[in-house]
């Protein structure tokens, strides 16, 4: 296949046209600065996953040479990959940020939330998240959600108003016109903000490569003890796997997403560099969520239903 870039052809290029990554970066930075300018207590949801890492990188660039004027919030399911938690703590220390943590385990210990039979804790994150938002009175909460991830997310605004229960009502969304974002909200309400709305998985990886952003090792191929459940390779752990009839084996795998260990699957991969990963994703016939997320397969409207409840 030839690889001509159309815009270098005669007559079609403007020296002022931005590359697609520059264009997405500029838009995301604009969104971060709008929130800094209009809100009192913004926070960035930070899981140590690639999308939140890119968000932090963009925020650092948006306010350089000053510090990022936001704190971070991690909703900790208790089923984390250790490499990801280490990354999180390093990033917080390196940039002098404040980290808030909402613990799912606390809620289970107090009997407020109940462990699900399948051990999946992703749906259990909503209550700790929304209570933390209320308790800390956060008025803008940045999420790394992208519209290409899922069909309900394709309907999401960049500035998404949530009521005092953090609920999303897709029928009552504000139209979003030009780049004039409306962040008005009543006391108790907050706005979820998605600076990566217009990015795709490939854009995120290309940006990581271009900017030389460091990632947790689990995103690259490594030997790992895994077992198969519902067509996915899961990491063995105290969270409840493997069960009877499930056997652990050593495989060369990597992760496309990072979430709760109980429902985030690894993919067979030999990709050890960023270029390998990009080539692999460009050729993949599966979406990131389809390949690695059990929780989205629960029903046709799983994501919409979780978002309505206040999930990110």
């Amino acid at each position, binding site marked *: *296949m*030839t*690889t*001509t*870039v*159309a*815009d*270098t052809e005669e007559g079609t*290029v*403007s020296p*002022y*046209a*931005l*590359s*697609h990554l520059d*264009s*997405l970066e*500029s838009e995301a*930075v*604009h969104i971060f*600065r709008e929130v*800094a*300018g209009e809100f009192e207590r913004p926070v960035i949801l930070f899981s140590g996953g690639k999308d939140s890492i890119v968000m932090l990188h963009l925020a650092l*660039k*948006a*306010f*350089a*040479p*000053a*510090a990022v004027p936001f704190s971070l919030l991690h909703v900790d399911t208790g089923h984390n990959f250790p490499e990801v938690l280490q990354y999180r703590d390093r990033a917080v220390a390196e940039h002098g940020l404040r980290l808030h943590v909402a613990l799912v385990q606390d809620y289970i210990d107090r009997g407020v939330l109940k462990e699900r039979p399948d051990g999946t804790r992703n749906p259990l994150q909503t209550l700790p998240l929304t209570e933390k938002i209320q308790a800390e009175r956060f008025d803008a909460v940045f999420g790394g959600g992208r*519209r290409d991830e899922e*069909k309900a997310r*394709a*309907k999401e605004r960049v500035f998404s*108003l949530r009521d005092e229960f953090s609920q999303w009502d897709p*029928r009552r969304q504000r*139209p979003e*016109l*030009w*780049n*004039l974002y*409306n962040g*008005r*909200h009543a006391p108790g309400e907050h706005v979820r903000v998605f600076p990566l709305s*217009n990015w*795709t998985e490939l854009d995120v990886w290309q940006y990581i490569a*271009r900017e030389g952003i460091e990632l947790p090792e689990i995103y690259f191929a490594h030997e790992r003890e895994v077992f198969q459940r519902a067509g996915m390779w899961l990491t063995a752990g105290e969270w409840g796997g493997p069960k009877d009839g499930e056997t652990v084996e050593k495989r060369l795998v990597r992760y496309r997403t990072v979430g709760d260990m109980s429902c985030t699957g690894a993919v067979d991969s030999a990709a050890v560099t*960023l*270029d390998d990963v*990009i*080539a692999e994703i*460009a*050729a993949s*016939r*599966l*979406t990131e969520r*389809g390949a690695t997320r059990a929780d989205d397969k629960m029903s*046709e*409207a799983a994501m*919409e239903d979780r978002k309505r409840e206040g999930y990110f």
Partner: protein
Amino acid sequence: MSTITSEELSATTLLRFATAGSVDDGKSTLVGRLLHDSKSILSDQLEAVERASASRGQEAPDLALLTDGLRAEREQGITIDVAYRYFATPRRRFILADTPGHVQYTRNMVTGASTAELTVILVDARNGVVEQTRRHAAIAALLRVPHVVLAVNKMDLVDYREPVFAAIAEEFTAYASELGVPEVTAIPISALAGDNVVDPSANMDWYGGPTFLEHLETVPVSHDLAHCHARLPVQYVIRPQTAEHPDYRGYAGQIAAGTFRVGDPVTVLPSGRTSTISGIDLLGEPVDVAWTTQSVTVLLADDVDISRGDLIVPTKDAPATTQDVEATVCHVADQPLTVGHRVLIKHGTRTVKAIVKDIPSRLTLDDLSLHPHPGQLVANDIGRVKIRTAQPLPVDSYADSRRTGSFILIDPADGTTLTAGMVGESFASPEPVKDAADDDGWDF
């Protein structure tokens, strides 16, 4: 795809475009084919659609399920909201604002078109230009979308005959140019059969132009914006106050139009104070020149009082400030907009109080006729509005700048986005706007 290196992919540009089409014009089929042929529908998504279609008793997979993301949409089989879709070819990345075609969703079309550089208007070759086509063309013209594509679909149902296409293209182009649409590209296609969508059609030898995708891949983006009046709305003041940067004071914003260079004499509006650009930081890196739509931080030679909401402009090319804004608006909220309504106006990064002084006319999109003094605008209405603002605003004409010529009205009570506004005259102007403002004596 897999043979393309990451550098080559990064070098591509981004085209934002919007679709408009009536329910049965084949919009979903066209979108489906574009996504499918550009490898943007992946197998797990297709499987999900097949599963859902089968559980509904449908024999073939219903591709509309790919794009109808909400429970209510799937239940009712209609599209109720704008959705954004992403796909890529080796030449370019695309963001598609997939907007519903029903007339009651004019606001959604306005939403999609506000950020689009190209609008696709679909017509059914058997029906030609109909009322809905004229409505779509009028909205594209109002929003000043730089490129309009007329996709004459279902050519397979008219035996791929050239005269059918030529007559529709001619009628539409004449109508569109009357509205002031700068450029129309007409393409005969069959979204269902695949003619001229991605691959050139063997059935229409008479057509020598680009396929639909080829046109999307090669249409120029951002081609004239850098030469417009330079405008930088200040979003945020960056003051590190650290040992390393004790005196750094930068004005952060996304350049809305034009080009700024170090050394340019600038004026800050609305105060009117002047200074010179002493430095430009492009996300941490110093540069000599920056242009739309880069997010930058500008440093000035003098200590000027500047805060969020101010507009930095070249001293030789400053817009007038005014407290009386005349605009064409599209009302997007369910509660009506009435004369005397107290609102907030967000223009660039500035939000000020305002009052609706007059609604001189409402536009009937079907025939572009004006209904004088309607008293109010309801959801999806397009009309002319006169607004008095509490503080002077440096507005441009929307015809000159889509970013500094646009605004939204917000309900101060509950924060609802009420209205999308475009400053200055449009094809719908009932009278010369500037003269009227002069007569009032409010002109600044």
